[in-house]
């Protein structure tokens, strides 16, 4: 009998197998490109050039990546606690309200560097609150968190439509969005930084200070998960609830705290488009970033060092995808949605599909590197 969890060298476990999964996902995506009558290799070249070929392209890539770092971290933190937070989309969307209210209140009064920290708090608090209810229901009443967070995505969407159409829309305006913020709620762009390296960046390119906040959060998440007592408890719970019980860790507390952090991270995503680019709160500003977070977290193996590059990869797909749509009329940006789905499928649901083959390959190369697996449990 083949044991799906037999040991492999760490580099194969964390590097080779995810890479194989990713390559397969892209090969299948290439087949879709072929199906619509375009050349997948040319498409790949256009994609990469569009994303990294120019300063402006790079700025857009990193702008999109900012969103995905936040949502990817949100999903990852929950994963570490053994929870599947599928509600990043809704948490980010409703957190737009927190950001919006802060900006509308202070943009005439305070400079951006004072509005920003308050807005961060607003975004995190509202996002966390939106995650709190499903967390509470899971911890106390056993309601399946996957289903409740999905439901909360839809409830958030309805609530935001109501708020933007009926409450926050300025009088006389037709568009369902808040008024434009003035400088007090506009984050500085970071295009100049890329210019320092001799790249030309259009001033309208949306890369902004939130990117640094995202990197900071990636660092914080690493710190939290691997360097704090709370992170230790979260990981214990995620790996083995029984061991957590043994160690005196309260399941209720961990579920709620983990989801609060996860929701806060998802909520912070709202800062990037709202304060960094659009300078208003508009309908559907999240546009799927919450879901991309699932793919990013799965691909990055829930580690910030994997999530940041995975987010940049998806940023590249978004930005390059826009260029691609321009060059190849048969391909639109929705190509990314397919790739995202394929990555989730191969890196997530089918992550062990290629493992037996890799193991067989290793076993035939050098039998000693593949240890004999311990039988799971020693019950007779």
């Amino acid at each position, binding site marked *: 009998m083949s044991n799906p969890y037999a040991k492999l060298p760490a580099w194969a476990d964390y590097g080779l197998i995810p890479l194989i999964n990713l390559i397969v996902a892209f090969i299948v995506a290439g087949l879709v490109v072929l199906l619509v009558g375009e050349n997948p290799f040319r498409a790949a070249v256009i994609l990469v050039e569009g994303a990294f070929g120019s300063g402006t392209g790079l700025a857009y890539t990193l702008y999109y990546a900012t969103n995905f770092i936040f949502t990817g971290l949100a999903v990852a933190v929950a994963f570490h606690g053994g929870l599947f937070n599928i509600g990043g989309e809704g948490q980010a969307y409703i957190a737009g309200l927190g950001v919006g209210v802060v900006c509308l209140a202070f943009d005439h009064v305070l400079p951006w560097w004072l509005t920003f920290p308050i807005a961060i708090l607003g975004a995190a608090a509202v996002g966390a609150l939106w995650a709190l209810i499903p967390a509470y229901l899971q911890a106390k009443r056993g309601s399946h968190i996957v289903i409740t967070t999905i439901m909360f995505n839809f409830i958030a969407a309805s609530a935001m439509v109501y708020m933007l159409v009926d409450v926050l829309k300025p009088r006389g305006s037709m568009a369902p969005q808040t008024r434009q913020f003035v400088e007090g709620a506009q984050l500085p762009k970071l295009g100049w930084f890329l210019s320092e390296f001799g790249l030309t960046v259009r001033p309208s390119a949306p890369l902004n200070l939130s990117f640094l906040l995202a990197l900071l959060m990636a660092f914080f998440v690493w710190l939290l998960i691997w360097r*704090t*007592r709370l992170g230790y408890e979260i990981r*214990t719970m995620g790996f083995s609830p029984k061991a957590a019980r*043994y160690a*005196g860790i309260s399941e209720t507390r961990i579920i709620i705290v983990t989801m609060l952090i996860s929701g806060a991270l998802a909520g912070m995503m709202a800062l990037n488009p709202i304060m960094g680019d659009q300078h208003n709160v508009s309908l559907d500003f999240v546009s799927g970033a919450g879901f991309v977070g699932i793919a990013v977290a799965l691909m990055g193996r829930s580690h910030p060092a994997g999530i940041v590059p995975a987010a940049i990869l998806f940023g590249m797909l978004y930005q390059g995808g826009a260029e691609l749509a321009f060059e190849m009329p048969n391909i639109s940006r929705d190509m990314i949605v397919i790739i995202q789905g394929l990555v989730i499928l191969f890196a997530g649901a089918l992550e062990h599909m290629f493992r037996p083959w890799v193991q067989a390959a290793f076993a035939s190369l050098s039998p000693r590197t593949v240890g004999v697996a*311990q039988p799971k*449990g020693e019950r*007779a």
Partner: protein
Amino acid sequence: MAEAAIELIGIDKSFGTVRANRDINLVIERGTIRGIVGENGAGKSTLMSILYGFYQADSGEIKVGGKPVSIKTPNDAIALGIGMVHQHFMLVQNFTVIENIILGAEDEALLKRSIANARSELERLEREYGLEVDPDAVIEELPVGLQQRVEILKALYRGAEILILDEPTGVLTPAEADHLFRILKQLKDQGKTIVLITHKLREIMAITDTVSVMRQGTVVATRETAKTTVEELAELMVGRRVLLRVEKGEAKPGEVKLAVDNLTVRDSRGVTMVDDVSFDVRGGEIVGIAGVAGNGQSELIEAISGIRKAVSGTVLLDGKPIEVTGQADPGELRDRGLAHVPEDRHYVGLVLAFEENENSILGYHDKTEYLKGPFLDIDAIRADAKQKIEKFDIRPANDRLKTANFSGGNQQKIVLARELEQNPGVLVVGQPTRGVDVGAIEFIHKQLIAMRDRGKAVLLVSVELDEIRSLSDRILVMFDGRIVGERGPDATEGELGLLMAGVERQEAAE
């Protein structure tokens, strides 16, 4: 001699490096009740699973009714007239009795006629064997005894001539068990062949015609029940193993550290596992709890260490109560000096995905010496882990290695090092040497003795009788959730074996 219903010839079966069955030869005669006894892990269940088509033997031959057969799936077994009553019932809880009975044995694509046929067949079985059960009752609303009857009916409905029962009385009350035995005798009288797997010797003596004893994957003896004694069987079951003598001096029991009073614990199904148990453990002594697995020892230590809620009773730690019936917090108990080495180190005592040093603080991760504010003090934790690795000779001596990659013995040393180095006043240990190599066993035993000699109270639960005998200063025997006897360290194996098999208690009751 009657003709053979089943012949097993040279059956071998390994799981990885573990040889669960080796060269088993067994002949079971038609129309008899055969008992198969043995300790946990002796290979009884594996053998029966091979017979029922769950596993395939690595080598060997099976003959049913004299003809060589190949049993690859339960379907093959059913077709050969072999039925099995599993230890954990294979019933769909929210189905009715009749639905469960026809599942997989329906006559046709529509249920109507199948159900009608099953109903009349059930009536016949009821008449013939006195197996009464309401066909329209929902399984989850039936008591376990009746659920088991449904399992038997399932097998008979499929035309079983050979019926295997795996630990059938484990979940039954004595009255229910007696009823079961009457049914089995009746089935025998009708010409059915019955194989009864159990570790309870009283049952063997009460009902079987012949009995085979298994130990460490082999059949060590087969006896006619009428010509053997409980003592002989107990001895065969346990075997005369080389006793690992542990050097230890006289115990100097001090004050009572742990006092358990009238403790009652139920499992998740509501079955009473610990029934009104009282005892205490003094400083400077090791109290061993002997017993066959599943007689309530696990639940007992889980309740004492705050992992499982008790129904009633009190536990005093150093004279102060533990909230065993309420929200006892294992973390708080650690602070109060109660350390716990759990029976299941893979899923409870360790997080296998963690690095060694991370596991060396599990449960103590909130101690200030491992923390800098909210942060883990990684340097301190690793230095501490390295020190424990050296002291307990944990190999490989790499505190960054994933815990899953250590051997069983070294994993157990990681747990022990963690719990002992906190210098607790009371140590609760479950199965300290299960799956541990010989070298590590000796080391672990020495550590436990050293704890005792430092005046600590040690409560030891083990299914290894040798271990209990060589370590304990007092031995309590648990059977069926109760403490059925207390003996000194010089008690003989036979004496303890009888207590463990519940013989003495039954005789006393009768």
